[in-house]
């Protein structure tokens, strides 16, 4: 097939591009925008949300997640399409931090923010401030949630504006849901109060 040189006019006239589905791609699945919401959930099987064996890897992105109270941004997973969010999880959690004033550079493991077979929420970010410009942004990967053989690994990295101290805090969490049942729903929330604003997008990765 002859190569055709593309120009603006040519691209503007295109009605369809050739398939590239065999390539490794991020496939956008769903965007949810918080509006003073207590929880945000992604449940497989409705409203165009897919969280099954269609993809071996899923990515959640967090943009400007703003809390109504100074609290921790957290998540949990379900194996019964969201009826219960109570799967046992073991996680690790560490942070790097720097204050606006140039002091208090810290790199530390956070023993109070991890889980050891906890069935409650797993912490993604610790205390985010509520000032109008404060928020949490970042991402969480969930690997092969539909496996009935393996535990389900996940890892997140977010940056947060730390409560009342004008600090940037780079937060790393990783762990696994200790189940060989398929995980088919994920829920996000703050320890208390609401998710006032912000977007969470879900992508599948081939």
């Amino acid at each position: 097939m002859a190569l055709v040189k593309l120009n603006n006019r040519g691209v503007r006239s295109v009605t369809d591009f050739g398939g590239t589905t065999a390539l490794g791609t991020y496939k956008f699945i769903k965007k949810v925008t918080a509006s003073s919401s207590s929880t945000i959930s992604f449940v497989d099987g409705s409203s165009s949300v897919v969280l099954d064996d269609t993809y071996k890897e899923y990515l959640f992105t967090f943009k400007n997640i703003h809390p109504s109270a100074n609290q921790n941004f957290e998540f949990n997973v379900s194996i019964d399409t969201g009826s219960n969010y109570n799967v046992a999880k073991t996680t690790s959690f560490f942070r790097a931090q720097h204050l606006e004033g140039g002091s208090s550079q810290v790199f530390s493991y956070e023993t109070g923010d991890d889980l050891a077979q906890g069935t409650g929420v797993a912490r993604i970010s610790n205390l985010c401030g509520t000032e109008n410009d404060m928020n949490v942004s970042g991402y969480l990967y969930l690997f092969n949630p539909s496996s009935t053989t393996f535990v389900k690994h996940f890892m997140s990295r977010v940056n947060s504006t730390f409560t009342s101290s004008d600090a940037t805090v780079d937060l790393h969490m990783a762990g696994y849901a200790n189940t060989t049942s398929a995980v088919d729903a994920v829920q996000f929330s703050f320890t208390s109060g609401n998710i006032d604003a912000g977007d969470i997008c879900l992508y599948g990765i081939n």
Partner: protein
Amino acid sequence: MARHHLINGIKVPFTAQEEADWDANEAAHAAKQKKTVEAKPYIAKRKLAYPQIGDQLDMLWHSIDQDTALKSKYFSFHQAILAVKAKYPK
């Protein structure tokens, strides 16, 4: 104000039971916060302000290094650090 879940982008109001459970959780959390953060506001500030552990240990070693009695008391610690300093001099 009535709370809601946002499930796949669709608002789902809390049930009465969920409202009660959430209220109880918030009350318990507030009580815990009051006990810790509000009663001791310096905890979070100190956590952010302390020097890194390595810097703290370095200060400790130099304090020990300036005191003969402490050098003897914490001999192993002092000598272990001193050996590294001797191996890689400034």
